[in-house]
């Protein structure tokens, strides 16, 4: 078996606040194999985007990484200097941020924005070679070469999102982190964008971390899924297992919240609100919303345990 390309070990991210420290990511560990598609799912505020950003050391003050380490192959990301981290972003790990289609520069043509990525990483290409690579990248995401001459406002949402993927893969990263890459798109365009991401990922042999809350999308795209709740991973398992047999009550609730296309009148929201990270409940953070909770859940915080190929953080699993 090959070595993991990315390892996250005991990562803790905290935000300082006058009313006390808030821990948005708490003791998260996982490893990503080359070419693997890993999903991170949870409600808004569960820490999944913060986790994604902290892998790239993109957390800004008052947030900071308190403990833990992230390794890309043999390089410990915390040890990199500013220059090293700049080279790592895009060339090692590329991020397709949330709402990234609005991250394109409105006054630069698409081709120029891709060329900027080359220039930023010290790639001195001749004009002809640069154009050839831009055309190839656009073709890889299913866009015609003429797009290079266009401005972002001339493109539809799906085309912009694909242009962002083209920029993300421009330096052949080993890991692509996609944070809700299709949340503003309709289903038809969403499927086109996800198929594009799947294709370029396979061509590069890159691993993908898909961050999101749509369990249907996760079921159709990722190989393995991690469920986050209040900053912690509460379940990690191969996707087929987690859908067929979710072991954590929160995972079950997330799957049940997905509107079904079979039986009608079955909208099941998760009761209650996600806890405030400043005043986490005692014991298991999910216990106030869990109908199965017993006294032990209120007193003792569950740790992730290995159960038949899955990792589950629940006393009752």
């Amino acid at each position: 078996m090959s070595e993991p390309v990315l390892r996250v070990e005991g990562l803790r991210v905290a935000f300082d606040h006058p009313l006390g420290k808030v821990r948005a990511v708490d003791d998260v560990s996982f490893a990503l194999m080359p070419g693997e598609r890993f999903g991170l799912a949870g409600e808004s505020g569960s820490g999944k985007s913060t986790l994604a950003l902290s892998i790239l050391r993109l957390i800004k003050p008052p947030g900071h990484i308190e403990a833990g380490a992230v390794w890309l192959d043999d390089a410990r990301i915390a040890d990199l200097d500013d220059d090293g981290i700049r080279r790592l972003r895009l060339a090692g790990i590329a991020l397709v941020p949330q709402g990234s289609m609005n991250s394109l520069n409105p006054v630069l043509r698409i081709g120029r924005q891709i060329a900027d990525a080359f220039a930023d990483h010290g790639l001195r290409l001749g004009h002809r070679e640069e154009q050839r690579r831009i055309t190839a990248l656009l073709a890889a995401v299913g866009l015609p070469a003429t797009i290079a001459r266009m401005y972002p406002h001339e493109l539809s949402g799906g085309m912009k999102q694909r242009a962002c993927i083209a920029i993300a893969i421009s330096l052949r990263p080993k890991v692509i982190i996609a944070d809700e890459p299709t949340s503003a798109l309709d289903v038809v365009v969403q499927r086109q964008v996800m198929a594009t991401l799947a294709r370029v990922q396979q061509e590069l042999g890159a691993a993908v971390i898909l961050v999101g809350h749509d369990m249907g999308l996760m079921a159709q795209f990722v190989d393995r899924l991690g469920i986050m709740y209040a900053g912690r991973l509460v379940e990690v398992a191969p996707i087929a297992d987690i859908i067929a047999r979710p072991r954590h009550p929160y995972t079950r609730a997330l799957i049940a919240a997905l509107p079904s296309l079979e039986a009608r009148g079955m909208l099941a929201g998760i009761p209650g609100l996600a806890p405030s990270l400043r005043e986490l409940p005692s014991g298991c953070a999910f216990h106030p919303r869990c109908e199965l909770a017993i006294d032990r859940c209120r007193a003792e915080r569950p740790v992730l345990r290995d159960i038949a190929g899955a990792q589950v953080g629940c006393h009752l699993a």
Partner: protein
Amino acid sequence: MMQCRGESGSGKTTLARLLLGLVEPTEGIVRYRGQDLRRLGFEARRTFRRDVQAIFQDPYGVYNPFYRVDHVLTVPVRRFGLATSRADARDLIGEALRAVGLRPEEILGRYPHQLSGGQRQRVMVARALLPKPKLIVADEPVSMVDASLRATILGSLRRLTDEHGISILYITHDLATAYQVSDAILVLYRAHLAEAGAVEPVVRRPQHPYTQLLVSAIPRAHAERDWLAEENETPRTSVALTPDGCVFADRCPHAVELCLAAPPALHRTEPRRGVACVQYREHAVLSASALGEVLLP
């Protein structure tokens, strides 16, 4: 509860704005209880503004960050003279907040940035409820909240129709939630009606090729893992659109000569369904004025 479904740019939001009287139609009439919206007198317009409420997509943009959230709730109370005293107004607002599953003590007195996106959106639903409207036009009310809150907010909208008899026009590009909460559905494609009818048959057994594409593109948790593979197999036609023909012809796997000659008529394929596609031309044509027949039970 009726639902209106189409992709970005298909005309859903424009339709909502027409219904709210925010834009005037180039041709045709929007009637509220039989009266042309453009010809409403001062009093009638005021009644219309009270009876028809809107919920918009963006739960961030509608708040003034310098005012407490109470502001968006007290304005309609004052504007429509809904309460006779302060205590009365407080009860009314409290009742509306509880109707959408919020605790007034956790909401009132706070500033918008202190609430979560889901809370802000539910406050907007509560605001729409205050004047006891007859119709709520909800334009993508849950597109910016996550899946579990989506179910909660739509559940509270659905209860409004069931318990208070309020009609709702739910505008969205999310067919799955629409299927769960609506009774009837209109599917729009590039400003044209593709398919309309009772939600159950339209979503379970779509007849228009565009509706079929929409349904197949929904990623499902409990299904074969063939969602991405299907995308790669989606036929690409090279038909060029004509100004007179069907607007979906260039993406349609069943496009024929006939599609390019004239816009397809709406055919009544079932008692409660109309489809604008030449494949169903042996069925009777449904006139625009009779559209209500397939939508209402």
